[in-house]
């Protein structure tokens, strides 16, 4: 049986080979797309297998490659933490690759397929290498490969100005983040005491003994860098720009998986490199997680662009993951390993869950986009009748992300609540008081997410078609797209009803990082009952909820259908008012109006109503125009001033340019003199 690291290596090599070979198949497009994406699916599956094996066995394997810098060859390492993220990347990669076979055909004849395949495979390979890398140099190479490949994918439809602007913003913030990560590695290496390049291996960083000041510097530099990639508020502005404009299969990968590499990075730095830290680090992570969760979902609620809305939900869910991580760090700092393990498992479980349901939702959004060619929800409606497969699959995603049982999002949020409930065990009185308030914010987030997805599903799939084109032209998507979504939806259900198995499997990670296992208590009563701490404290049974609901529904249905009653279909009751049109339905903006009114002070909302009087009867309104503009305050406060400042500096520097050759010669001469003076 091959070692798991070999399987992971095979996955990466297969993807890299695909990137190289794709141009050769350019002329035979009928083979190129299915072949490339099926092999992409095979590679993803290999990554999943490698990850599952590693996490299950709790094994650590490492290897050194003969390429790299002189004195610093590339190091690879596959431990349970890396293995878990391999599974996350691989699973979503598998679903999205299957989905892409059908989705990418939509670009046939318009855009280069080779470009898509090359960057797609490089993107996947980059993400796999990020979690496999075991030295700073290789990590950053992989990190940049991932960032660059995704930049080109965001730019895929580059004739639109919006896309170019989004991609630039993405690249900018990604590089500010990468710079911070580079500095964090520099601090770690500089303080590790190793000579030469040896300090840059992760092994040296693991054994480094940092003073508390340097450790904080390293951690927060790294946290800043990873937060920029993850879209933690206030570094989130690129995310709602870049995710919507990328092709939907890429949005699914970016939102579902790429953001998770930063979660990996934060775990690596906190629990693997530094290990001993004061509680306030966790406090900072927790606070930022709470802000991201609440603000992310509120911004999402205000959107009416389907993909932009989903992108803001990624900000929210990254927040929820950070809440778990922050709690885990606080518990770990107070030497409560069992509680730290629970919070860490909650965070990791949510990482996996979010990857799958967000992948599913973006694939569903892609299917809707594919069928209707619009992203604006206000122009959709009633798609459940035209897309009988996509609608229920998308609904599974909606229910999962809204944290409703028995689907997967619920389990991880419930575990996070349980971690919150354990905060009275902390010895710090202020924390005992403040942390439960965080649980209230998490409850608010969950309820707002449910409101938001009622809006999404209700406006897009239910009601009547609101758009301009004829709804008869909308058709269900093909089998491969349906297949990708179906697999993701089944995973959502399985992860929701079999949490004890997943937690048992995950157990090697908290064992290595926090020094405590969860499965001993979590699965004490068998696979049916999930009891995170003890049976007396709290329990949940996904299978019983699922089967119970199913059984009652089935029995009720059967009992009520014994006697035949007629079901008559009639036009909608219009209260005697005859001209009921689809435009009179509630829209997405109308749906979120009450919450906009209540929580609008958090945004820059501008509402304008303009009534133009009727030309013949000035007393009557002729037409009414309603304009609504919602802006991100962070953009106005943080980014716009910086952009303005950069522009101002550029203008001032621009004064040097006179356009006369004599002046330029003078500049050169002065520069030369100054340099000579300094050298002398």
């Amino acid at each position, binding site marked *: 049986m091959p070692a798991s690291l070999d399987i992971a290596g095979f996955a990466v090599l297969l993807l890299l080979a695909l990137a190289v070979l794709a141009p050769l198949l350019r002329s035979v497009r009928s083979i190129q797309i299915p072949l490339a994406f099926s092999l992409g699916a095979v590679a993803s599956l290999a990554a999943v297998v490698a990850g599952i094996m590693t996490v299950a066995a709790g094994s650590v394997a490492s290897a050194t490659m003969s390429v790299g810098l002189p004195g610093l060859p590339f190091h690879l390492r596959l431990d349970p933490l890396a293995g878990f993220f391999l599974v996350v990347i691989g699973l979503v990669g598998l679903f999205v690759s299957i989905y892409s076979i059908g989705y990418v055909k939509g670009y046939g004849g318009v855009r280069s397929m080779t470009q898509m395949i090359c960057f797609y495979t490089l993107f996947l390979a980059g993400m796999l290498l990020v979690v496999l890398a075991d030295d700073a140099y290789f990590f950053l190479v992989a990190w940049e490969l991932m960032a660059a490949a995704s930049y080109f994918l965001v730019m895929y439809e580059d004739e639109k100005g919006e896309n170019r602007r989004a991609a630039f913003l993405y690249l900018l913030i990604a590089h500010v983040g990468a710079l911070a990560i580079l500095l964090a590695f520099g601090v770690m290496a500089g303080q590790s005491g190793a000579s030469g390049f040896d300090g840059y291996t992760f092994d040296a960083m693991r054994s480094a003994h940092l003073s508390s000041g340097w450790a904080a510097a390293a951690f927060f530099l790294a946290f800043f860098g990873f937060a920029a990639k993850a879209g933690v508020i206030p570094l989130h502005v690129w995310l709602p720009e870049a995710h919507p404009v990328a092709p939907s299969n890429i949005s699914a990968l970016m939102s579902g998986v790429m953001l998770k590499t930063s979660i990996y990075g934060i775990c690596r730095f906190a629990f693997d490199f530094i290990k001993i830290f004061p509680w306030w680090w966790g406090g900072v992570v927790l606070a930022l997680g709470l802000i991201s969760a609440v603000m992310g979902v509120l911004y999402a609620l205000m959107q009416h662009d389907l993909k932009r809305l989903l992108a803001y939900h990624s900000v929210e869910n990254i927040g929820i993951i950070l809440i778990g991580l922050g709690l885990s760090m606080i518990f770990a700092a107070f030497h409560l390993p069992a509680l730290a393990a629970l919070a860490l498992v909650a965070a990791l479980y949510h990482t996996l869950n979010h990857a799958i349901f967000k992948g599913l939702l973006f694939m569903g959004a892609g299917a809707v986009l594919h069928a209707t060619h619009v992203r604006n929800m206000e122009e959709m409606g009633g798609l459940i009748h035209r897309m009988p497969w996509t609608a229920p699959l998308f609904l599974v995603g909606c229910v999962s992300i809204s944290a*409703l049982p028995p689907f997967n999002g619920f389990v991880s949020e*419930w575990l996070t609540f349980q971690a919150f409930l354990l905060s009275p065990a902390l010895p710090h009185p202020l924390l005992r008081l403040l942390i439960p308030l965080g649980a209230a914010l998490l409850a608010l987030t969950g309820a707002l997410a449910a409101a938001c997805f009622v809006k999404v599903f209700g406006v897009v799939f239910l009601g009547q078609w609101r758009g301009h084109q004829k709804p008869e032209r909308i058709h269900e998507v093909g089998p491969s797209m349906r297949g990708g979504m179906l697999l993701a939806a089944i995973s959502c259900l399985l992860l929701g009803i079999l949490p004890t198995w997943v937690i048992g499997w995950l157990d090697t990670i908290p064992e290595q990082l926090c020094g405590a296992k969860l499965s001993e208590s979590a699965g004490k009563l068998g696979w049916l009952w999930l009891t995170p701490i003890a049976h007396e404290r709290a329990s949940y049974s996904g299978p019983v909820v699922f089967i119970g609901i199913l059984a*009652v529904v089935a029995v009720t249905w059967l009992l009520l259908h014994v006697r035949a009653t007629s079901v008559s279909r009639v036009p909608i009751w219009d209260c005697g008012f005859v001209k009921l049109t689809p435009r009179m339905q509630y829209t997405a903006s109308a749906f979120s109006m009450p919450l906009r009114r209540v929580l609008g002070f958090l945004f820059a909302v501008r509402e304008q109503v303009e009534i133009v009087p009727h030309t013949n009867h000035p007393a009557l309104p002729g037409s009414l125009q309603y304009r609504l503009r919602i802006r991100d305050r962070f953009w106005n406060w943080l980014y716009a001033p910086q952009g303005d400042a950069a522009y101002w500096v550029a203008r001032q520097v621009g004064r040097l340019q006179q356009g006369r050759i004599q002046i330029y010669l003078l500049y050169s001469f002065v520069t030369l003199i100054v340099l000579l003076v300094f050298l002398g």
Partner: protein
Amino acid sequence: MSLHPFGIELLQFVLLLGLAPAFAGWVKTLKCLAQGRTAPGILQPYRDIRRLFGKDIVLAENASWIFRFTPYLVFGVTAVAAGIIPLISVDLPLAATADVIALVMLFGIVRFFTALAGMDIGTAFGGMGSSREMMVASLAEPAMLMAVFTVSLASNSSSLTQMVAVMGHAEFVIRPSLAFALAAFIMVALAETGRIPVDNPATHLELTMVHEAMILEYSGRHLALIEWAGMMKLTLFFALGIAAFSPWGIASDGDIGALLLAFGSLLLKLAVGALVMVLIETGLAKMRLFRLPEYLGSAFLLATLGMIAFFILE
């Protein structure tokens, strides 16, 4: 003589399914008495449900399967919740299915699908109801969680049977934290079950409807299921309050005598609880929608005070 745990579970299902309409009838009767009207009698909800089950269904042309599936799901989820909240005994094999937090989320499914069904037909009424319901729910959820959190601090558990067991055996002392939590719980429960001052279950006026607006298009057996589930939900919220705040009298095993005693005390508590709710509903007017944040905000504040009181005083 003693009853097998599964027997108790079954008994509890039957009790809740059977008693919920009577409880709703009792509430209606009390309300009529309080407001000087003639009451239709406690048994009226049974007659309503039977009549609706016998009727044919009228469906809007563009109703999808969501609309037809929702009543069954709403009924199913509420019935599952009925197996979890201890009514007469804590010896329930299915009680471990969900703790308080999971239970609150179970009711979240009911709300989610009812709201979707409201949007399915595509009338303005349905959308309006869904939008308002989701707003109220979003603001009620944090307060609900805080109240539950405070109670679970006192019993060191969020499992309902454990809460009942701990509280039921504790000696009777007035705890300030629980008093605050109870006040918050009552306020939130009124919101969650759609009663005055948050929503008026008796109205069909477009300006004030919330829950009724979502189910306006339902007829026949669909409506019967939704109404029945609504009555069960009301009873369950009372049962939840009783289990969390005054579980005295509940049986700890399947002894027939203890069960009978528990049943008697349950009926008494439900009757008194209904009286309190009717007094609140008669004394207050329905609030404007945009005053609800203040109402739910004060519920949250009360629950938070309860938690602070627990840490400082107890």
